[in-house]
């Protein structure tokens, strides 16, 4: 089947799954917001206005319309920070997952395809990494590297690699035994040809599903690092970091400072989970829960 038709068919099947479609819609909207924050945000996300600290938003009356979702403890527009934060959070999630997918593909294909001692060693390393709760491993890596957005991407990318490597490996183990691989080998095809032309294309479905679902996890973990003050450095607008000062805001009665950034995180994660679940049902029915 030509590729175009395949993509179209996938999309048509996805269209039947309402939940996945809602997820796709949420993600598309978020991507658009992330692409054009400058034209969507009503205010400068970084500019402080100490005279306007912790002011409520539109619900308090028309005179507060300048900051629709209120201001934070430094008098910055919360809506604008959420809009700019969309770019940060999606980017962190995306890049972290790209890192883990590339590493996971390399490790998983090698250990699944070649097997032997390399497989044993790699899988033991994976076991060791599984001995850490994911956020603890991320915090540990951040403790060594120091805070910062780029480092958070690397840390989360590393944290998600073992699971991806396992997903790839188990797919490759099945593909390796297929008759068409044996046929290729009998024809004298090189390992690299078999891997690039036959193993990888057939292993891609579970990788896409797992990558989508782990983007949701990566966004949550990035927000957690930001919340702990280990991710994005101030004044970069990032959803998790926006929540880190909000305990004080809460006790001061400014509920909006703690509420809206969390809703933004939840929407993004919800969208990715819906889309991921839908794609799993579509591409890899065996994984269905």
């Amino acid at each position, binding site marked *: 089947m030509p590729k175009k038709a395949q993509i179209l068919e996938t999309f048509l099947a996805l269209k039947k799954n309402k939940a996945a479609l809602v997820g796709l819609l949420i993600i598309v909207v978020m991507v658009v917001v992330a692409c054009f924050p400058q034209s969507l945000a009503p205010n400068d996300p970084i500019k402080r206005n100490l005279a306007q600290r912790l002011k409520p938003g539109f619900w308090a009356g028309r005179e507060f319309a300048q900051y629709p979702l209120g201001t934070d403890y430094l008098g910055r527009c919360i809506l604008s920070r959420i809009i700019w934060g969309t770019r940060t959070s999606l980017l962190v999630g995306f890049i972290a997952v790209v890192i883990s997918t590339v590493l996971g593909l390399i490790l998983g294909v090698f250990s699944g395809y070649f097997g032997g001692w390399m497989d044993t060693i790699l899988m*033991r390393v994976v076991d060791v990494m599984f001995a850490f709760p994911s*956020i*603890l491993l991320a915090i540990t890596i951040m*403790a*060594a590297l120091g805070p910062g957005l780029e480092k958070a991407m690397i840390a989360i990318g590393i944290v998600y690699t073992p699971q991806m490597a396992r997903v790839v490996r188990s797919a490759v183990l099945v593909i390796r035994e297929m008759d068409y691989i044996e046929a290729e080998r009998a024809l004298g095809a090189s390992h690299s040809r078999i891997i690039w032309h036959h193993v990888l294309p057939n292993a891609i479905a579970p990788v896409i599903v797992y990558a989508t679902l782990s983007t949701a996890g990566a966004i949550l973990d990035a927000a957690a690092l930001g*919340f702990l003050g280990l991710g994005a450095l101030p004044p970069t607008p990032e959803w998790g970091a926006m929540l880190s000062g909000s305990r004080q805001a809460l006790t001061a009665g400014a*509920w909006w400072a703690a509420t809206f950034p969390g809703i933004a995180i939840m929407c993004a994660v919800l969208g990715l989970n819906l889309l991921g679940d839908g794609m799993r049902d579509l591409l890899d029915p065996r994984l269905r829960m």
Partner: protein
Amino acid sequence: MKRYLVKRLLLIIPVLLGVSMIVFFLVRLAPGDPAKVLAGEHASPEFIQAVREKWGLDKPLYVQYFIWLRSVLRGDLGVSIATHTPVLQELLTRFPATLELSIVAMFIAILVGVTAGIISAVRQYSIFDYLSMTGALFGISMPVFWLGLMLMLIFGLRFDLLPISGRLSPEVTLRTVTGLHLLDALLTWNGRAFLDALAHLVLPGVALGTIPAALIARMTRSSMLEVIRQDFIRTERAKGLPEKTVIYKHALRNALIPIITVIGMEFGLLLGGAILTETVFAWPGLGRYTVDAVYARDYPAIQGAVLFIALTFVLVNLFTDLLYASINPRIRYR
């Protein structure tokens, strides 16, 4: 079973060695002289020299690792830079707080998750099913620290029903026996402290238990649905067994295996979530200790805490695996 047990116990040794290596190299990855990293930025030159000698930091790396490993095995995790007390001692005083919180959270998660899952499966496509599965979807999409903040906002600040930080109110006294406040209050017959400790546990417990509850509910539902559709259940219904016996005695028992696996896996999530929940609720446990240590660049404390949490996690996983194997004999012979 004995052979499986031995095999499983032997398998955790390489994992623990790997964990110790990661924790050891953590300090080497940190920028700067490892002696200064371990002694703290403001340490005197004499103290830095003492640290260097104690951990053999002028020797080759593998020698350093074995020196470190030997003292770790003896229970010496070094001295905290921030408080100058032995790290192991600090970890042990904080561990009961995390344990108590995790147990309460897990209790809430299992109670809510399994109940909701069973009802959803039995009444598939009912309003309850729809609502609880939507709730579960939101549950797994929420950041745990944000949920904590929201609970704090609604129940702690808006309605002032429950305390929002710490484990006990300052005016309440409690003699420490085990470090688990609820248990200590029972042992010392201290009703006031029991209620106070319980009230302090509600919000962090609910915050920490929600995500596992959502996952358990989803797993229970799908596992129950799979079992309910099988022939033996149809036979039992045809025999005229009461629906309650069919569901709780036969269906649930068969659906339990994947549910237990998920519960075991959630414990890791719980330990991770505890790091964030404890930060939100100022809960004096291991998680908050780890985060404070990271802020203070207190590397001996970070090393100790990470090692301790990872060890707990490995042991919990081992325990789940054994439980799983004792329920499902097929696993043992793989």
